[in-house]
């Protein structure tokens, strides 16, 4: 069993001009935990994922993935060291990011989508990569589409391929950027079930989502973010129902008002009577 957190972010700040899109975020995710991140649009959820993967390197703060510094490193004597691009690329492999728009490579077959990075970045042989990819495809129950191209498969299958591509690198943690927002309503359930399966297999995950059902039923922990600040952090039930913070309350009141079924599942019992 791995020790220490899978991901640790310390005092992350990302500025866009005057605006602080990420404002002193501290985040520690232990191995095996499933964290969901919710918040109103434009609150910095996607920016946080982009910071954590160094697509948009944070202006300040430190990121550790599986015990290794990503980008900036804080040495024992307090000196800040900037790691090389090569080092950053190597540590990046420990984080898998599944984009909202998936970004599969349309000119490569499903198999090549999953194998290319394994061969280049991990130095696996072609056969090794293929075997690993087939195992993942079987696990995600899409073994039969290995030779198809992304344009020939359904949205749900594409989602699975994107997940398989990220998982093929054996990441310490998987990040999902709104995995259900680009899908047909009927596919949402399918993807949520898949995330649930991944969660129960012990995968460490950070999921940005608007699906409060996922946050409530699958996640171990719920983060609420607004204006670049994490306002609430705790067990999903507690955050949804018992937060003292007015802004968090307002958000969940608004969201749950549209989902009567959801309310039935979360409201404290005494309110039912």
């Amino acid at each position, binding site marked *: 069993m791995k020790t220490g957190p899978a991901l640790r972010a310390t005092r992350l700040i990302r500025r866009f001009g005057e605006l602080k899109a990420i404002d002193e975020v501290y985040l520690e995710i232990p191995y095996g935990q499933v964290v969901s991140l919710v918040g109103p649009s434009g609150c910095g959820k996607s920016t946080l994922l982009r910071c954590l993967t160094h697509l948009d390197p944070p202006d300040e703060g430190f990121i550790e993935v599986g015990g290794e510094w990503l980008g900036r490193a804080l040495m024992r004597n307090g000196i800040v060291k900037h790691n090389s*691009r090569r080092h950053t690329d190597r540590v990046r492999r420990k984080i*898998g990011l599944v984009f909202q728009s998936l970004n599969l490579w349309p000119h490569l077959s499903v198999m090549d989508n999953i194998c290319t990075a394994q061969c*280049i970045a991990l130095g696996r042989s072609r056969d090794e990569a293929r075997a690993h990819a087939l195992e993942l495809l079987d696990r995600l129950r899409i073994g039969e589409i290995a030779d198809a191209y992304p344009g020939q498969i359904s949205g749900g299958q594409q989602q699975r391929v994107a997940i398989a591509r990220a998982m093929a690198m054996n990441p310490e943690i998987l990040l999902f950027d709104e995995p259900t927002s680009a899908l047909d309503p009927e596919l949402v359930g399918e993807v949520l079930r898949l995330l649930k399966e991944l969660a129960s297999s012990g995968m460490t995950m950070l999921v940005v989502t608007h699906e409060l059902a996922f946050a409530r039923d699958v996640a171990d922990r719920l983060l609420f973010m607004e204006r670049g600040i994490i306002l609430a952090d705790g067990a999903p039930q507690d955050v949804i129902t018992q937060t003292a913070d007015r802004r968090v309350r307002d958000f969940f009141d608004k969201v749950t008002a549209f989902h009567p079924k959801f309310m039935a599942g979360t409201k404290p019992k005494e309110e039912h009577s």
Partner: protein
Amino acid sequence: MHRSVVKVMALDPTVILNYWPLLVDGALLTLRLAAIAFVGGMLLGAVCATLSLLNYWPVRIVILVYLALMRGIPFIVIVFLIHFGLPSFGIRTQALVTGTVALTLYAGAYYAEIIRAAVLALPRGQWESARVIGMPPIAAARHVIIPQIISPSVPPIVNCTMTMIKESSILSAITVAELTYQGLVIQGNTFAPFEVFISLALIYWAITIAFSLLAWAYERRFGTASGRTSRMSPIAARYLDIEGKSGR
């Protein structure tokens, strides 16, 4: 009246037959110039496009100024600027060299724009997904970006190359002995402009058509094969299989 029309239309083929070797020499030089400008221009274009896409503004500004100049100045002025401008910096070279350089710089600017546009037309996520999974920049370019920009950029590159082949005729103005220059020489010797220029027209036309056929064959072989299979709907794919038209 009838007679004069006949007289105007009368072509004297002996002019062309007598001076045929000069035309062949000129055509060969035009082909050589075009080949050098194509290869050199593609290399220059690829380098410029790459540099202009890097997030390093001083280099970017230099490249963008170069592209804007080449696209904003008539080719003949570029040729004169290089040919007559270099000597004032103490560099004296043959017209052939300055002509080749001018043609390469000119074609390179257009190729750079085409490559740049093809890369920028790709969704940003294609690059990001390759980088975030841990591919170094060169590998991401090689495996994810370049394969996807080839088929969309073939048609504009063909177009631009045909223009470049035709523009090479302007090098006759600085005495580069290419096809048009030889034509002017024959015309000066024979005073038979119509015969000469109709031959030039046919030869230029043959060269550009041959090039576009080559590109068409390439597109058929590679461009559409990789470009379409990824986007073809299953129904279309099945239809093409039945018709025996499938690329594979």
